[in-house]
């Protein structure tokens, strides 16, 4: 029998379900709205006296604000309803009955749930940045990429934890609730840590926070002030920033690896 293309077909099927009309259109609209209309260009303008690299960082950070939240919502929706509900209803059981390795089924689902969402986000944002400040973005594209890497890592980490929880609880609704709680818990804890760090002038807290939120280190590196007027407590070097970004991705990869191992070796339908 001729071999088919099960991976691509499961991926196409997942895309069809995850982005059916009008879900894709709605999220593209919110991405575009967040990028062009809701971006906080004020912070970018405040760096006008700074280096071009810092301006590039500031621009990228400002357009990322709302779309990053939309990106997280889309991922939570896709993991909860795309994967969680498929497990709950038995669609995953159907996929597992195909001549396809488990790791590839999960990859196809994640490529649709996370990969495609990311592609849409970057597909709108990168051209938008070129439109807004073509010269600065072109000459400091590395700083833009670093900004994206630093800001995306906590979202991907949350996604990894949510993936693991979705595989364990096997309920779409429950996974959705967990994802929302997880996001708010992360936001609240990081805000509290940030406040404590400045209140106690503790660089250690900022360093710990940077492992999970490397954008904290990156913003310090570019001289952005969270609390204007308050003395800076920590200014990392570029190598340190790269280390924190690398560490945060290692943690994220570890979380996904656990989810993969669980799905391939332990998960049963």
């Amino acid at each position, binding site marked *: 029998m001729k071999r088919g293309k099960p991976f691509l077909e499961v991926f196409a099927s997942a895309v069809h379900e995850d982005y059916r009309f009008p879900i894709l259109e709605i999220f593209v609209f919110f991405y575009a709205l967040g990028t062009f209309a809701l971006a906080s260009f004020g912070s970018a303008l405040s760096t006008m006296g700074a280096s071009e690299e810092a301006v590039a960082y500031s621009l990228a950070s400002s357009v990322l604000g709302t779309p990053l939240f939309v990106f997280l919502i889309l991922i939570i929706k896709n993991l909860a309803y795309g994967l969680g509900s498929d497990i709950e209803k038995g*669609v995953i*059981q159907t996929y597992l009955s195909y001549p396809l390795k488990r790791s590839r089924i999960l990859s196809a689902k994640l490529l649709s749930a996370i990969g495609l969402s990311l592609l849409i986000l970057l597909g709108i944002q990168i051209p938008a940045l070129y439109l807004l400040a073509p010269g600065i973005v072109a000459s400091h594209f590395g700083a833009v990429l670093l900004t994206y890497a630093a800001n995306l890592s906590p979202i991907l980490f949350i996604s990894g934890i949510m993936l693991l929880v979705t595989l364990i609880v096997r309920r779409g609704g429950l996974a959705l609730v967990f994802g929302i709680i997880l996001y708010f818990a992360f936001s609240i804890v990081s805000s509290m840590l940030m406040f404590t760090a400045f209140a106690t002038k503790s660089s250690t807290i900022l360093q710990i926070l940077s492992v999970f939120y490397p954008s904290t280190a990156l913003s310090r590196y570019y001289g952005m002030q969270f609390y204007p007027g308050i003395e800076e407590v920590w200014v990392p070097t570029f190598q340190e920033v790269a280390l924190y970004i690398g560490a945060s991705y290692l943690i994220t990869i570890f979380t996904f690896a656990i989810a993969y191992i669980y799905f391939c070796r332990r998960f049963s339908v």
Partner: protein
Amino acid sequence: MPMVVAENLVKSYGKVKAVDGLNLTIDKGSVTGLIGPNGAGKTTTIKMILGLLKPDSGWVEVFGQNPWDNPEIRDLIGVVHEKAFFPSHQRTIDYLRRACRIFGVSESRAFEVLKLVDLQEASDRAIKALSAGMLQKFAIAHALINQPQLVIADEMTANLDPQSRSALLDLVLRLNKDEGVTFLLSSHILPELSRVCDSVAIINRGKVWAFGKLAELYEKYGAGIVRISTDRPVELSEEIKGLPFIEKLAADARGISVKVAKGREEEFYEYVSKLARKVNAKIHGIETGSASLEELYRLVVGANKLGETI
């Protein structure tokens, strides 16, 4: 030649042992029925055969390979799950075409299988718009898309109307006879299984309690069955099971089925009258004959429930 071999399969969910040392062999070209009460371990067994569940211990081979580690063997298997679910927002024909591409068969096969199960008129419908019976037919069509050598179906005829059930059983027989497709069918509808199966495995409490060719099982358990029609089957069966020459006994609301030791039938009839008077039961009729599959099943399962007295 065995197509499926399971040896000492064990699978527990927490403290509950769903399958407990199960042995099963499915020969190539056979139609084997898997029967047993709810919670007997049929679906768990099927999932382990398909490689969807990993046994706690024991092993299973399908086409000579471990299904958990070798998903490529599913190229040769068609599956109808107990609860069939597919991506619901796709059209039936589109999803079947996708399945064709997954298995590497011609996309024209999609419409062929819809026709096989008499669902061609629903080819443009979204899967979520199918009724329960239509969804079941769709699941059967989906299972046949790769022209499988082995079809494993869990409650294949659930939700189908009598006409569709009959047509489907004809299809099973035809595929088995003309194309040599091997079937493993799990069902509670025993008359259906007796129509198509040549072998039966009776599963209870995670073990195979009886397995073999249907004719051999009838010979072993079902020949010379005495059926007693009475208004008090429970009370009378309690008395009868104490008789030393009772080999098997099963009772339900309609009466009692008993397998009596050879040559002791006359003695048994005398005892039945006495015992009926003792428990105040009215005997409406007594007849002797061969057991149906349902009786066979009840005798096997019921007999073991009664323990050492049988």
